[in-house]
């Protein structure tokens, strides 16, 4: 006969003894008492309710102005929607604001914001144990965003661009050195993994140009050497303009061994047509036009959901590239035979029980844009010069996803398993006599657990699709030029941008920046 207990404070410890069909008595947790695991789950629901895909919201609210090349408006949008970043994405906030201010030509303000981003990144060196633990229950969006390796290199690169635009070459080199320290640390962590991102060709090449601008010939040659090696080891093919320039610089510095080792004569000869600007005298006066073209991809999530039957089956649903829902039935680890045998003996068994599962993984999402290159014309370029691409963000982002796929999958599996167990505990704890309430509570628990599952789709999507360059040898003096953006078919986009009164001293390398994200 079951024992009755007085109903007093819910905080007191109570147990209930029941008799099963076989006559054995068991203790069960009291009905209606929330289990310890369910409480954090409910608490997290309140905390994380606002985390629903803020990346997508940022993309929708900010990308529009940026795509119209209205960078000042886009920067204003970022400041207005600061709440969409939250405390976990401060790095991204300052990077987005900083790069928009750079595109708008406000180099001083861009330096302030991007320097704050560097400071945030430095502060994030120490990982919070409690935060990491929380992310294993909730999702990776609660972790502070530390930036992807190529983003951090580009962060320093854009800071260098700002300093170059202001004629501060030494400060630009400081950024190059900081990026170099970061890459050295990446290389150390990568160890023997040759596929890991640990160097960047564009960064090395532009560092070489800055060394040329400051008359440091040896450092320029070393950087050019490393630029060629970095391009060859990475996902971006060696641009012909870099091959040509590297050959010229290494020849001027009498580094024949490097030329032979890099097989530069063949590379320079076999590349596609060199831009009409031609190879520049490393020590001569020139105007270097850097163009930021198109929009880099963002990240979206691939969601997989379904049911895991403990007897050994997994039914998974997902959407294919066309948005059509696909269902797959896969074999999965099942229960041991001993568990299956229990049912034949009339004992309670876990056979026939199911778990609802859902997990999400980040995936590339293309951002449509038309700008592919620029042409430079005007007094400084009597024959129009087409820019050449130095880097593309899409292969770098794709490389990052591939490199980190295993780690992301392991974290996702741990998180899904932890949450699934917590959800099952919750369902058991809250189950009562009323089947309708039980059904609603069970469905509610599953929906709640589902809400947590969001892939970390944060990315610096305001980066340009490609970074372009044109080098214009000029005589010392005051010059002017115009820059026109083009689509992939060569059609002009928008109105040309004019740059007047560009004063170039003897031997000076003057940097000019333009952007078209449309």
């Amino acid at each position, binding site marked *: 006969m079951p024992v009755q207990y007085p109903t007093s404070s819910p905080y007191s410890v109570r147990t209930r003894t029941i008799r099963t069909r076989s006559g054995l008595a068991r203790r069960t947790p009291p009905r209606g008492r929330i289990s310890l695991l369910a409480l954090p789950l409910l608490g997290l629901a309140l905390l994380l309710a606002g985390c629903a895909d803020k990346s997508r919201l940022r993309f929708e609210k900010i990308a529009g102005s940026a795509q119209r090349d209205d960078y000042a408006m886009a920067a204003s949008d970022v400041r207005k929607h600061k709440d969409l970043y939250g405390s976990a994405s401060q790095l991204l906030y300052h990077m987005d604001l900083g790069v928009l201010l750079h595109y708008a030509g406000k180099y001083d303000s861009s330096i302030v914001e991007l320097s704050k981003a560097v400071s945030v990144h430095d502060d994030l060196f120490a990982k919070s144990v409690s935060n990491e633990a929380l992310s294993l229950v909730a999702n990776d969006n609660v972790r502070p965003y530390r930036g992807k390796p190529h983003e951090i290199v580009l962060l320093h690169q854009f800071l260098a661009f700002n300093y170059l635009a202001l004629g501060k070459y030494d400060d630009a080199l400081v950024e190059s050195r900081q990026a170099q320290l970061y890459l*050295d640390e990446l290389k150390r962590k990568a160890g023997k993994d040759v596929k890991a991102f640990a160097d960047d060709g564009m960064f090395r090449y532009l560092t070489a140009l800055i060394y040329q601008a400051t008359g440091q010939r040896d450092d320029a040659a070393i950087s050019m050497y490393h630029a060629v090696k970095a391009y060859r080891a990475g996902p971006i093919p060696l641009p012909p303009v870099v091959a040509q320039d590297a050959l010229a610089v290494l020849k001027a510095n009498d580094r024949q061994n490097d030329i032979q080792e890099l097989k530069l004569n063949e590379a320079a000869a076999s590349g596609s047509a060199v831009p009409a600007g031609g190879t520049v005298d490393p020590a001569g006066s020139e105007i270097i036009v850097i163009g930021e073209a198109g929009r880099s991809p963002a990240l979206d999530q691939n969601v997989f959901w379904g049911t895991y039957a403990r007897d050994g089956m997994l039914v998974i649903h997902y959407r294919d590239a066309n948005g059509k829902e696909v269902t797959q039935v896969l074999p999965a680890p099942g229960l041991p035979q001993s568990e299956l045998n229990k049912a034949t003996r009339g004992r309670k068994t876990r056979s026939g029980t199911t778990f609802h599962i859902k997990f999400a993984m980040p995936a590339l999402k293309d951002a449509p844009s038309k700008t592919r290159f620029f042409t430079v014309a005007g007094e400084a370029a009597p024959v129009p010069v087409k820019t050449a691409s130095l880097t593309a963000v899409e292969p770098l982002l794709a490389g990052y996803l591939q490199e980190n796929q295993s780690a992301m999958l392991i974290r996702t599996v741990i998180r899904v398993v932890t949450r699934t167990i917590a959800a099952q505990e919750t369902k058991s704890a809250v189950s009562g006599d009323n089947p309708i309430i039980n059904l609603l509570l069970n469905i509610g628990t599953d929906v709640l657990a589902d809400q947590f599952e969001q892939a970390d789709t944060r990315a610096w999507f305001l980066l340009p699709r490609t970074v372009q360059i044109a080098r214009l040898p000029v005589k010392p003096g005051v010059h002017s030029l115009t820059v026109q953006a083009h689509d992939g078919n060569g059609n002009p986009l928008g109105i040309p941008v004019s740059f007047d009164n560009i004063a170039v001293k003897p031997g000076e390398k003057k940097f000019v920046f333009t952007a078209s994200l449309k």
Partner: protein
Amino acid sequence: MTRFKSRFLTSALAAFMLAGCSTKVTRVTHDSTIDLTGKWNDTDSRLVAEEMVKDALSGAWYAKYAASKTTPTVVVGVVRNKSHEHISTETFINDIQRALINSGKVEFVANKAERGEIRDEKADQASNAAVETRQSAGEESGAQLMMIGELNTIVDQDGGKAVVFYQTNLELVEIQTHKKLWIGDKKIKKFVERSGTKF
């Protein structure tokens, strides 16, 4: 006191204590050493200035001027930052200038940027100021020596540990002959440790 009241009072007390910890200011002396991040700071700037002033005033180059009872005139040229940090070299250069001027042994003239501004002022006076108050053009003091230099760093880093070596070099160059009369240097080395985890 019931357990509930006791817990409530403890929580309230903790809340008040934590609220009082949000911002705390302690005034310290200008020459106190406080290292927060391991990066170049005011202490490093002060150490460089002190070392350079001491070395410059005791250098053999000064003897020639002392013997001829003339005070050398110096202009500050470019002090390059070749390090991996954004460091304002003006802080220790200004300290050095002040110390040398106050010693009475060296005179400084305005640097290139400052001269440009002063010349603009003279041109403005030539057009607008009363004749008797105008400062004449062509009366500037030419410098005999130029102070130039650079700041370099070497960083050895492994995870959260780094050894950072700063070397500041300053030179006095005779403008007439391009001879280097004095080279001073100050080395600073730091071991910086950062924890990889926190609660």
